[in-house]
């Protein structure tokens, strides 16, 4: 069996989502980072028409990004419902663990094109 979360905290403070894993490791994901990592088709480049496109001008009263709720998908993934109505991303546990932003996990990852959380 693969690693699975034991506890998922949507609001772990400082705009982060925290996961405590079955091996004891704790991952802490900034909301923005997690949203940038959304694995859904439209976020990963497929041309999917979306109903409400987020305003490109953040100064026009955009609410701060946060997950409103989350649901388990089968035995293997987490679906996050963001407060801007985006919810198509299914984050598999394997993927979440792979993109854990902590220093210890980051050194094990191959170098990425853009630094995580740079936006």
């Amino acid at each position, binding site marked *: 069996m693969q690693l699975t979360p034991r506890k998922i905290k949507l609001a772990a403070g400082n705009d982060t989502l925290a996961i405590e894993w079955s091996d004891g490791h704790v991952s802490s994901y900034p909301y923005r980072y997690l949203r940038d990592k959304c694995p859904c088709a439209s976020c990963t480049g497929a041309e999917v028409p979306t109903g409400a496109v987020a305003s490109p001008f953040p100064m026009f009263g955009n609410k701060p990004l946060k997950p409103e709720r989350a649901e388990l998908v*089968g035995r293997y993934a987490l679906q996050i419902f963001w407060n801007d109505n985006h919810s198509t991303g299914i984050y598999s546990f394997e993927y979440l663990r792979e993109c854990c932003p902590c220093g210890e996990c980051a050194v094990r990852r191959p170098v990425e094109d853009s630094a995580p959380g740079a936006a």
Partner: protein
Amino acid sequence: MKISPQDVLNALKAVEDPDLHRDIVSLGFVKDLEVGDGRVSFTIQLTTPACPVKDQLAAAARQAVAALGVADVQVRMTSQVMTPMREKNPLIPQVKNTVAVASGKGGVGKSTVAANLAVALMRTGAKVGLMDTDVYGPSVPMLMGGSTAPHVVEGKIEPPVEYGIKIISMAYFLPKNEAVIWRGPMLHKTIQQFLGEVRWGELDYLLMDMPPGTGDIQLSLSQTIPLTGAVIVSTPQDLALTVASKAIAMFQKLNVPILGIVENMSYYLCPQCGHREDIFGHGGARDAANKLGFPFLGEIPLDVNVRIQSDSGKPVALDDTTPHGKAFQDIAGALAAQISVVNYQVGPEITIE
């Protein structure tokens, strides 16, 4: 010598469940212990009525207590099927275990194995349902005989019951010679309706006959409910096993436990001369299971009676005095044992705050 209930429990701690590798006392199997003058009685509550070592456990427990010098030992055997500790299933809350019967390649006998395992589990006293998720090529209603159709009661589908097994299949909703010609999203909707809009009621095991492959239906099912596990059916030939390993890879990716591998069409025994012909090779599925580290649940030889009875809607597992009926009974027992093992292994609950 006076014997205390604690003495009896200590003695019973020597009796171990061979599948769970723990003693029956710490597993909580021992119930209703009564200790009287020269007599002891208790109940052993197993995790499945299909337990393959039921008699063995009863004998071992009786012997362990008799060794204390108790003349009259009464052992009652009951069972209470467990449900995985972690997952709650809002769609089908009264179904304790959901098991996908899958393969890579088509034509290896998934539906026949699923139908017969359902019958074999039912015959041990378990409450069983059989869901035909093969929307394009539904075959369960034919295998299970009967001609009752599902009907709607209070907004939910009441599934037909054949041989005590609740069944749902796309075949019930289609005129005989029509085909389902759908794209993925329709399949997804159907799977959700088969789960949430069918009155399954309380079930110990809901077996799901899967279509071949690793596509829409497999993914929908694995996303819609937390499956207890999957059984892989394969013929012994390399071609089938190679494709079966794709199905295994898919379930591993989706974190669905592999409960074991069944070898179908294992060999052919000529009824005329008794000569055995290994048509598809033999033992390939066992070797693959050993290599991959999954339980091998058993083998079913190729036999014309299996085909005749399947086509006429009388699964061979209805009669376990026949070699094939016995084979399915043994496989069902091994499967039920693996389900119990998985249910004990499943880790702590995932909480979302």
